């Protein structure tokens, strides 16, 4: 049975505090001028009025995590031998992502496939994922750079969330989409939401139409192979790129990582940390050879991964949710949306620009 609750705006804090008593709550918090997804603390200021700079992926896939810790010990029976003690306990708290946008939730769905639909499912990611509930807010207005409808997502898209919340005049309609979502809505703070359902449907429809008007309908045209493999195209497109990792680290769908063993004397940790395909080191091989030595090739990989390679592996799905974060966060306003659109045209020398 589908369940809907109504959260009065004046009870928002109380509701989040109640969630916080049960789980770690990740929400978009105001820090100076930046809105960032962070674990909510008593003095956090939650900001739902504009999309966060960063995505909430760090709740499930942290920027860095210890895969295991180790310690070398001399065998007291035979001092020539060294023993290794390993601790690979995965401690995972229940987590609620509150106030994600549909593009954020889509991003997590993209990462899910990479860590689960593979020969070696990732226990660390999956342990956290299983304990995470996603509460998504219907996006009322498109922001600068938003193009979610063009990649098949949308401001009221429900398919990747557990609860959908839609802002109405003095509160939010909270609709459960999964059993996890239903459990989350079991709260005396919420009123019955049935009466608001029609109103919320209207708001969702209006949000969708606004976004379509802004960004256009889903573009299913395949990438033109000739353009995609044109060196000239990528050199032009990457011309102003600074080669930093802002785009990938702000991206809700990027999931590449690096692994390092960090040891001091006899003990250490194996660390997994985000990596960015725009960095020179990303594909630097032990031999010293780098198959993607130029930023043009690195950009090709970044866009290619999202619009070509991922789909080849997973049923034609686009690994970009159109959130516009990479565009807004880029120091030189690189536009993935324009580059992707240009890739679909057969014009080996187009610049990737308007």
């Amino acid at each position, binding site marked *: 049975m589908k369940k809907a609750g109504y959260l009065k705006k004046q009870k928002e804090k109380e509701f989040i505090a109640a969630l916080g008593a049960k789980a770690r709550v990740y929400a978009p918090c105001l*820090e*100076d*001028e*930046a809105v*960032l997804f962070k674990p909510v603390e008593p003095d956090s200021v939650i900001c739902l*009025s*504009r999309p966060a*700079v*960063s995505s909430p992926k760090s709740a499930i896939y*942290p*920027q*860095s995590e210890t895969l295991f810790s180790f310690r070398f010990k001399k065998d007291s029976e035979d001092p020539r031998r060294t023993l290794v003690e390993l601790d690979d306990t995965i401690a995972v708290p229940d987590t609620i992502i509150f106030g994600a946008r549909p593009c954020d939730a889509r991003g997590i769905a993209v990462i899910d496939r990479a860590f689960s639909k593979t020969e070696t499912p990732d226990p660390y990611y999956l342990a956290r994922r299983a304990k995470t509930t996603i509460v998504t807010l219907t996006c009322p*207005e*498109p*922001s*600068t*750079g938003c193009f979610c409808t063009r990649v098949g997502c949308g401001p009221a898209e429900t398919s990747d969330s557990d609860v959908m919340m839609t802002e109405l005049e003095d509160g939010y309609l909270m609709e459960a989409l999964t059993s996890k979502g239903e459990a989350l809505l079991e709260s005396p703070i919420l009123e019955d939401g049935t009466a608001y359902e029609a109103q919320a449907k209207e708001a969702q429809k209006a949000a969708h139409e606004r976004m379509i008007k802004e960004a256009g309908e889903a573009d299913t045209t395949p990438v033109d192979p000739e353009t995609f493999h044109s060196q000239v195209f990528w050199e032009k497109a990457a*011309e*102003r790129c*600074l*080669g*930093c*990792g*802002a785009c*990938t*680290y*702000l991206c809700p769908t990027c999931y590449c990582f*690096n692994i*390092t063993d*960090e040891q001091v004397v006899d003990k250490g940790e194996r*660390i997994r*940390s*985000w990596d*960015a395909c725009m*960095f*020179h*080191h990303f594909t*630097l091989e032990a031999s010293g050879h780098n198959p993607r030595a130029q930023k043009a090739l690195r950009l090709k990989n970044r866009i290619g991964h999202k619009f070509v390679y991922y789909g080849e592996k997973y049923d034609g799905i686009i690994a970009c949710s159109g959130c516009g974060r990479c*565009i807004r*966060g880029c*120091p*030189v*306003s690189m*536009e993935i949306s324009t580059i992707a659109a240009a890739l679909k045209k057969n014009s080996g020398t187009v610049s990737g620009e*308007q």
Partner: protein
Amino acid sequence: MNLEKLKEIVRTVLPSVDVVIGYKKGLDALHPVPCFLTSPDEIDALVLNPACMHNLAAYLPSLKNRAAVVVKGCDSRTVVQLAQEGLIKRENVVVIGVPCQGAVSVRKVLSAIDHQPVIEASFENDTVVIKTKKGEARLALRDVAPDKCLACRYPTPVVADHLAGEEVEPKIDEKTAYQEIREFDARSLEERRAYWMAEFDRCIRCYACRNACPLCVCRESCIAETRDPHWMSQKATQNEKMMFHMIHAIHLAGRCTECGECERACPMGIPVARLKKKINMEMKELFGYEPGISMDDKPPMYTFKVEEEKIEEHKIR
């Protein structure tokens, strides 16, 4: 800033260079982007207004060919510093200077318009006019200028082969330029540490500050990322982040030309330029040196004196 004059200059300069680096329209009127002109057909796409924030001189070291570059006062200092350090050859660069009345910080504009998407932006003398769904906002340039402009002492490029506009007189003297830093320095050590720790906490180690910095020269060998040797932990802890930012700042001692690109590039809005400015202030006090002002200067980190006037430990007793 005179766009028509700039276009005229570019038209004359273009045949003698391989590329002209300027600005063109980007995402919206508030976000012009760097462009690389190679043909006269592209000249009309040039844009020049206070939103042209990027320091285009940053691209120079990576270009093999002869280039012309559009620079504001602050950016021109980068050209000087790069040439002094041998990172570019001055004779390979045609400098098109743009006297500047102050730029616009997108972050400050967005804050003033309640983070509404910008529909249109235009610039009138000392006002920026922003149109959003909520209406029109008229903002005084001074109120939305990045911090660097409020302390700018070189509005007219210090080096230029061509000048697109009338020279602009600086409004700030040396003492006021570092006022903000002195005030911050007056806080207790604990306060300052707490401030920076909270700021660095937001850092995602994307290295946008480093890559945007025209004088970060280690490139692929940056200590923050090298894997062999593995100098820095890849953990996303406050200590590691602070370590990286301190290394960045120290490496720029006596080299930072205060273009503010590190701070502008930061997606998290961390005021990282302040660290470099603090060090520049110290360098000025110790060595009387200001980076990127004159081609004839010798940067203090590129030379040494047997005895340093203002460093007690370096005096021969």
